[in-house]
């Protein structure tokens, strides 16, 4: 029973969607096309000439053990960021939902971290954990733990995960909180009368009803972890001790802009595009089946 709008003729619909098509063409299709084109060449350092190598760049990448390791690092990083940003957000949304007094204030304050740009969030957390002047690393030092994310790969990974997830918690919180409002109170009350306790009500009623939101946030957070976390990695670890925090998108930057190897960088972008596209298709095909609308 969907509502559909029918247009007579084709000119008006074309005009209406033209701006969106234009934006997509200029900001997506054209750069993507250029990336695919550039991935077939090796440019010289000054960008004055290019040498055709066909799939040579791709062969070079896929045989590089560090590039393959980067896939694993990216996967681990995305999963951690998604978990660390979604679970606290859901918890906070539930808690905020039960508030009566001061709900507005808590909601507003919980949303603020989202306004902080990723690079700035990165610098903030870097200062707190800086091995020399950081507040947190000083307290950890007093407790006897020597924090050194410059040498320790797991600590570096932990730091960038927390940094990336911190601002994201607010975003997820907003969506979860709104979704919680749409859960019908009558069903909750009926379950409560039947004797179901809070967690049982949560698992069997609230969570399934939240599934469209959870699914949406899952897709969006994975894309965020793949692409928008570049600012955090760049400001905190620059790829981390021994490439332990070099995610795929950071490698694209490092090879392309720092190493000036535009051919390899373009090839990496193409691979990244295919990977994230496939991941999103997978999510829609298989996970969406379990979502109740």
């Amino acid at each position, binding site marked *: 029973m969907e509502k559909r709008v029918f247009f007579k003729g084709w000119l008006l619909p074309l005009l209406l969607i033209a701006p969106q098509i234009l934006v997509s063409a200029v900001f997506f299709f054209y750069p993507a096309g250029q990336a695919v084109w550039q991935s077939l060449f*090796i*440019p*010289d*350092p*000054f960008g004055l000439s290019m*040498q055709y190598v066909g799939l040579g760049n791709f062969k*070079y990448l896929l045989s590089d053990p*560090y590039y393959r390791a980067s896939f694993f690092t990216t996967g681990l990083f995305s999963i951690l960021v998604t978990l660390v940003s979604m679970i606290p957000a859901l918890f906070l949304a539930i808690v905020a939902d039960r508030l009566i007094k001061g709900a507005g204030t808590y909601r507003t304050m919980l949303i603020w971290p989202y306004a902080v740009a990723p690079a700035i969030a990165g610098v903030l957390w870097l200062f707190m954990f800086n*091995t*020399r*002047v950081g507040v947190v690393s000083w307290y950890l030092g007093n407790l006897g733990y020597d924090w050194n994310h*410059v*040498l*320790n790969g797991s600590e570096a990974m932990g730091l960038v995960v927390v940094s990336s997830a911190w601002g994201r918690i607010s975003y997820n919180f907003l969506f979860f909180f709104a979704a919680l409002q749409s859960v019908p109170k009558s069903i909750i009350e009926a379950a409560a009368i039947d004797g179901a306790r809070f967690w049982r009500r949560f698992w069997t009623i609230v969570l399934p009803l939240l599934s469209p939101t959870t699914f949406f946030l899952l897709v969006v957070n994975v894309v965020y972890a793949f692409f928008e976390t570049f600012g955090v990695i760049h400001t905190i670890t*620059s*790829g981390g*001790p*021994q*490439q332990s925090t070099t995610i795929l998108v950071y490698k694209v930057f*490092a*090879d392309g802009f*720092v*190493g*000036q*190897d535009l051919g390899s960088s373009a090839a990496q972008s193409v691979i990244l595009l295919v990977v994230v596209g496939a991941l999103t298709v997978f999510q829609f095909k298989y996970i969406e089946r379990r979502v109740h609308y």
Partner: protein
Amino acid sequence: MVTAWQSWIHLENFSAYHDVPFASKDNGFSGLDTELQVNGDAQIAHLTAMGQWAKDGKFIYTGRRNEGGANFRAGECALFTESSAGYAGIKSEAKFAFDVRPLPYWEGVGNAPQNTIIGGASLWVMEGHEEEEYKGAGEFLSYLSSSDVQAKWHQDTGYLPITAEASAATKASGFYEENVGTEVAVIQMTAKAPTANSNGLRLGSFDQIRGIIDEELEAIWSGDKSAKDAMDSVVKRGNPLLRRFEQANR
């Protein structure tokens, strides 16, 4: 001990100062078909020693750039190997008396002490512009390299003057007597005529190679790899980059 710019000081300058090759073909100057040679005995011995100091807590690794400056200026570390450009920061922040000395070297290794090599940034004029623009660029470069400007630049920042004239002018003005230690870097770099190993480096994709070197050095400091394995890995990972560069510039 703490350091800044670990690759530049402890590998590149180390190789030049001890007159051992960093890469074949005169460090890349005589051909693009150069290969890295950082896994030579001298470099491996030095990095093994430093790795041991890192394990003993005598050498503290603080980062790939010049983060170590903060530790030194705060009085945490007694020795700091750094670029001459770090002098100004130390002078203004350090609350203790300090001294400037030439880079330490291993007695009897190679031809030490030879000379150190330059670091820092540079300005390039590219082809393909209008005549008028080149005139402007030429005048700007003449201005920059004029004796007064160079002398002031050198004195204010700690970077070395690029002309002998500016260096002589600074010496004549008594700057080096008033600011003890500022002449050390100049003497260290110019006292001896450079050999094929201490002329500098001309290597393609060097930014990426430095990234690789930084990563492998981090492996040594954290104890994950021996110095030999790390430097062999640098050669193994860096040579394909040099070949790619060579291919793109045939």
